[in-house]
């Protein structure tokens, strides 16, 4: 299937091209349709890529006619394929969902811009995940940052501007650090291709320990900012809470995941375990991850704004992913990647249902969500499913991650880390359940109201339902997915 080799590249290109077609078209409906069609095409293409990868295990798409190490290549293995499909799927669903209601949330003339930005964002995120060239990934990171900033600022409210500013500044810091890290690597090895750097680094470790450590730190902090690693997450709640609903879903679902994947690739594919094990970086990531798990949940627990709560929950969940990396064993990494999947689906589900609440009721406060389940039962059901997954009800993806993470922690030899995982999931209970309970069983705000009056038509909830179905499938099918991801883990 030689022809398929460029599919991954093609999908990015399609997105880029359509992104810039959109502002030209006048009708909003047409834009929406084009966007949906493109997303669908991209999803199919990436699914094909994934199938292909599943068959041949690994392939490389070369861009132009330069081969690696000088040319830019896309190295796609199971991890990239899985994450790519996830990105495409989530954005498809989000675009589908947005097609019904985004014009209510943002100004009419900005709708086209919204789709443009989403296309750009998806393209750049896929690029980050697929590319095996470090500098290329940096460019994609910058593009994704700008697109994401646009998605937040598109709402034009003061707090959006503020949040965007915060995000932009911190992101720029991160980008600068990443670029400096790339420069260090280049100066040490003279390569930008990950594989090539890896091979060179293995030989030239001696004498470069300090530079390696510095560049590692730069990558970790830089990408950590973008991926909302715990102490560097301060931009996230503002940004995610103020953005329009679909944007939040994309931001929380996939935008913060791409840097994680890149960090994973940098850490384990560029530097490699041989180098990492002599440094303190993994332990730091573990500690940050663990702290994030607890602190994120604690902060989420005390929020009064529903969206902020869900945003803080993202911080906690990113903590799980970093925790998995920090463990540094095959199982931990596998489950971290799996959690990217799990959290991507779950969180976009949650954000979309939350934005649906906010859109329909105009309320943001958790206290005002009482009785929401009687008005919007299906939406709250989807929210509940997501919440249950976060809490760790068996067979949902959240549980699978937690379970395997715990096993990995045992494997790592630190039993007390189990307690952190469990405490975190317990904290999740403490903030997800009150909403569900009060939503379904509290009827304080319902005096004299007609039930189900505010529910969106089921037609508009189809993307949400599909997301939650996918979530359940990922949960139940965790076995093969985990095996597949594990097959791609760099040997330790």
């Amino acid at each position, binding site marked *: 299937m030689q022809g398929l080799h460029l599919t991954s590249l093609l999908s990015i290109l399609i997105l880029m091209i359509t992104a810039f077609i959109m502002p030209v078209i006048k009708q909003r409906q047409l834009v929406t349709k084009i966007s949906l069609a493109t997303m669908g095409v991209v999803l199919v293409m990436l699914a094909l890529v994934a199938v292909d990868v599943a068959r041949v295990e690994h392939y490389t798409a070369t861009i132009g006619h330069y081969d690696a190490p000088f040319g830019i290549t896309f190295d796609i293995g199971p991890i990239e394929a899985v994450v790519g499909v996830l990105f495409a799927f989530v954005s498809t669903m989000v675009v589908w969902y947005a097609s019904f209601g985004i014009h209510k949330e943002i100004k009419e003339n900005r709708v086209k811009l919204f789709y443009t930005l989403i296309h750009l964002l998806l393209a750049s995120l896929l690029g980050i995940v697929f590319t095996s060239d470090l500098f290329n990934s940096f*460019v994609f990171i910058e593009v994704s940052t*700008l697109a994401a900033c646009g998605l937040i*600022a598109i709402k034009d409210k003061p707090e959006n*501007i503020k949040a965007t*500013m915060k995000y932009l500044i911190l992101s720029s*810091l991160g980008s600068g650090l990443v670029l*400096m890290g790339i420069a260090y690597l*280049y100066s040490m090895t*003279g390569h930008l291709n990950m594989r090539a750097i890896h091979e060179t680094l293995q030989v030239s470790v001696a004498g470069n320990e300090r530079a390696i450590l510095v560049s590692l730190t730069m990558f970790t902090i830089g990408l950590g900012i973008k991926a909302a690693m715990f102490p560097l997450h301060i931009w996230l709640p503002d940004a995610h809470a103020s953005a329009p609903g679909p944007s939040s879903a994309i931001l929380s679902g996939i935008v913060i995941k791409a840097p994680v994947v890149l960090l994973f690739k940098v850490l384990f594919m560029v530097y490699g375990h041989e180098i990492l094990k002599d440094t303190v970086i993994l332990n730091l990531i573990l500690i940050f991850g663990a702290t994030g798990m607890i602190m994120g949940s604690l902060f989420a627990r005390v929020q009064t704004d529903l969206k902020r709560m869900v945003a803080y929950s993202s911080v906690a969940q990113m903590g799980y992913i970093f925790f998995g990396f920090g463990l540094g064993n095959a199982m931990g990494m596998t489950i971290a990647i799996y959690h990217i999947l799990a959290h991507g689906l779950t969180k976009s589900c949650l954000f979309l249902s939350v934005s649906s609440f906010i859109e329909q009721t105009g309320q943001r406060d958790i206290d005002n969500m009482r009785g929401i389940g009687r008005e919007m039962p299906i939406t709250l059901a989807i929210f509940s499913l997501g919440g249950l997954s976060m809490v760790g009800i068996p067979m949902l993806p959240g549980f699978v991650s937690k379970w395997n993470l715990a096993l990995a922690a045992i494997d790592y030899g630190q039993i007390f880390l189990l307690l952190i995982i469990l405490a975190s999931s317990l904290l999740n209970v403490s903030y997800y359940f009150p909403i569900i309970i009060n939503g379904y069983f509290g009827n304080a705000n319902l005096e004299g109201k007609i039930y189900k009056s505010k529910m969106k038509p089921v037609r508009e909830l189809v993307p949400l339902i599909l997301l939650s179905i996918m979530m359940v499938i990922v949960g139940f099918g965790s076995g093969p997915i985990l095996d597949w991801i594990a097959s791609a883990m760099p040997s330790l």
Partner: protein
Amino acid sequence: MISFLASHYFQIGTVILFGVGFMTLLLNNNLIRKIIGLNIMDTSIFLFFITIGYTGGREAPIINGAFKGIDAYVTPIPTGLMLTGIVVAVSTTAFALALTILFYERFGTIDLSEVMDSRGD
């Protein structure tokens, strides 16, 4: 140590520059200054790259006349990369400036500290 400083003064300078830019970006409350800091930081990295790329006594990678063999030319990749980098930096700067204007329209100030409250940490 001294020899290291002497031989790597370009790199050291760029790193110092990077620090200056970084700190400006991080600590200054004025948005314009922040953007300037961002540019200083980016530029320092470009410089760093280019200093890596330059090898003393070699020519620019343009075949002017006969081809003198690969060792006669500096590697062109950093320079090429930096062109991309500059583009990226410029777009970022542009975006940031646009945002600053919006910011000023909304809040009537470009001082971040006056606007940011403590929420979100």
